[in-house]
């Protein structure tokens, strides 16, 4: 039932040993037709499988759907349609879909805008750095937790590592600003080692390091959860078999543990790739300042300044739409590649 079931893991091997559960049960072994028939079984004959019949028997369930669907329509799909202002002139106070068509005017405008290209590359660099560092670290940390023998120590360490996940982004930004300030801890360390203290948040060359470090601090501990769950589902017999074959701890890790968590890794990689263009807009907005726009300004913050601060709604919408489309393409292609390679896709 579950991709990453947690509790079932322990009882299965015992049953398998006793011959109760067959070793392999391929869910695809049942002919497709039969499965489909099973699923439809309740419906009986075909003429009951109509909308009219469905509404008649399930109208109460459909009434439960009214408010949530209205929510999706108004607050999710209407703004999607609202992106049409990227191609129409919008004036504050006019219809949310703009006044008149201007075609590709705003698209051409941002393609010729040097600031757009600066924030575009900043977004890519920040996204790639975050992905490259924040994706593998939870795996490493989960494997480290997994090697701890003392359960008490393990529990305490996990609790501590999850804590930053629960903090508001404003608190995290506040901590970053304080730690990097001229009299903050990092500068205390530097000066105790004999260095010159630096106003980090005014130096463009430091922003990426600071951003990614804070991201690591905030996300890595929590990121281990799914891997730890996947680790508990690995069949202990596999380790025993590996030991009989003479595998030491490292080889067991390489040949049993890592393959055991690969499906989880792939799913999380797809999700990370799909969201990497959306890198921490709120965090950057809280951390950056005009002195470090050169490296800190990303597409989302630029959209915010152009649209909200300067009221160029159509222009900002065009840039935002471009970013959202890249995100969509990224997640679709990551999912497609994963499906082609190993069959571990999101859908």
């Amino acid at each position: 039932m579950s991709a990453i079931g947690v509790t079932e893991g322990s009882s299965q091997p015992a049953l398998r040993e006793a011959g109760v559960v067959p070793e392999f049960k391929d869910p695809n072994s049942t002919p497709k037709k039969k499965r489909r028939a099973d699923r439809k079984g309740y419906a009986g004959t075909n003429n009951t499988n109509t909308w009219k019949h469905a509404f008649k028997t399930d109208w109460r369930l459909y009434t439960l759907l009214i408010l949530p669907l209205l929510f999706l329509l108004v607050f999710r799909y209407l703004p999607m349609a609202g992106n049409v202002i990227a191609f129409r002139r919008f004036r504050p106070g006019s219809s949310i879909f703009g006044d008149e068509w201007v075609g590709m005017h705003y698209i051409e405008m941002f393609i010729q805008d040097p600031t757009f290209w600066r924030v575009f590359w900043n977004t890519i660099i920040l996204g790639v750095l975050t992905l490259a560092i924040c994706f593998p670290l939870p795996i490493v940390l989960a494997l480290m937790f997994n090697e701890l023998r003392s359960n008490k120590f393990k529990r305490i360490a996990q609790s501590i590592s999850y804590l930053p996940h629960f903090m508001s982004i404003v608190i995290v930004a506040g901590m970053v600003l304080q730690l990097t300030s001229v009299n903050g801890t990092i500068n205390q360390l530097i000066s105790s080692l004999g260095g010159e203290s630096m106003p980090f948040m005014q130096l463009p060359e430091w922003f990426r390091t600071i951003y990614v470090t804070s991201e690591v601090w905030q996300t890595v501990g929590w990121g281990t959860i799914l891997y730890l769950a996947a680790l508990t589902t690995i069949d202990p017999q596999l380790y025993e078999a590996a030991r009989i074959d003479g595998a030491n701890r490292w080889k067991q890790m390489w040949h049993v543990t890592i393959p055991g968590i690969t499906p989880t890794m792939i799913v999380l990689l797809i999700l990370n790739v799909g969201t990497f263009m959306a890198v921490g807009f709120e965090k950057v907005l809280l951390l950056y300042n005009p002195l470090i726009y050169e490296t800190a300004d990303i597409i989302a913050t630029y959209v915010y300044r152009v649209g909200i601060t300067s009221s160029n709604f159509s222009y900002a919408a065009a840039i935002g739409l471009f970013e959202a489309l890249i995100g969509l393409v990224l997640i679709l292609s990551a999912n497609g590649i994963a499906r082609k390679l190993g069959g571990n896709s999101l859908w």
Partner: protein
Amino acid sequence: MVTIPAEPGTTIEKDPRLGSRPTQTIKIKDSRSYSAFRVFNGIAIIVICAVTLYPFLNIIAQSFSSEGYINAGQVNLIPRGFNVTTFEVVMSDSMFWRNYANTVIYTVVATAIAMVLTTCFAYALSKRHLKGRSFFIGLAVFTMFFNGGLIPNYVLINAMGFTNTIWAIVLPNAISVFNLLVMKAFFENFSQELEEAAEIDGLTTYGILWRIVIPLSKAVMATMILFYAVSFWNAWFQAFLYLDRRELYPVTVYLRNLLAGATGTEQMGGAAGEGTQIASNVQSVTMLLTTLPIICLYPFLQKYFVRGIMLGSVKA
């Protein structure tokens, strides 16, 4: 029966009855490098925990320190010039309390709305026979990967007249698709027999949901309430965007304005800080008080969150 070689690092190796087995000679060497690794691993984990905790301890130390020591860069783990006057200063600001109360109101209202919508949606979607079910699920899941974006949302909320009202905060994020999927997965495993029995006893769908399913799903309900409440408590951007009267701010926006004032840069618009340098200890105390409920609830939060994430890892 096959004898399985002892797992390195376990006590079996020290057992004299097993000590002379031939396989042990390789294992002992293995175990030495492995036990070296385990020592290193334990130390590394302690260091990671220390680094994770440090920013919190630093905030606490600053909260109780006097400004002079902080500006001289002498406060890290232990408060210097111990005092509680900063707490008095922050807590005597009526705007702080007003904004704190706003946060409580927004969190409660938003969580209530979110729970009603999510529960109804998840329950209906959990019925596998519901016609159009996969279409509705697809409709929800698609919004996880593609959304309207900042500007169309902003234009919409303004056009609806939500600016400077609570609705701009509590409505636009009322359904989290992740939470929806967690809840749907839970309801799908709910006992069919029980629901059928209730139906035979004359309960309608509403009755089953309200009197049978919800009372028996307390754990998942609690988890969802915590998920939503934490996210609404921590939220700031919606409020920052749509509220421009100070007395409506949640405490997170109050804090943001303190921080923005402290960096001396007011490019971010809104009613940012007054440009004055806000002392670090005032910032620290505000941060501490803002996050205090989360820290107090942390043991529960952690337990329920971990459980919820596990449920959520069920493939959508």
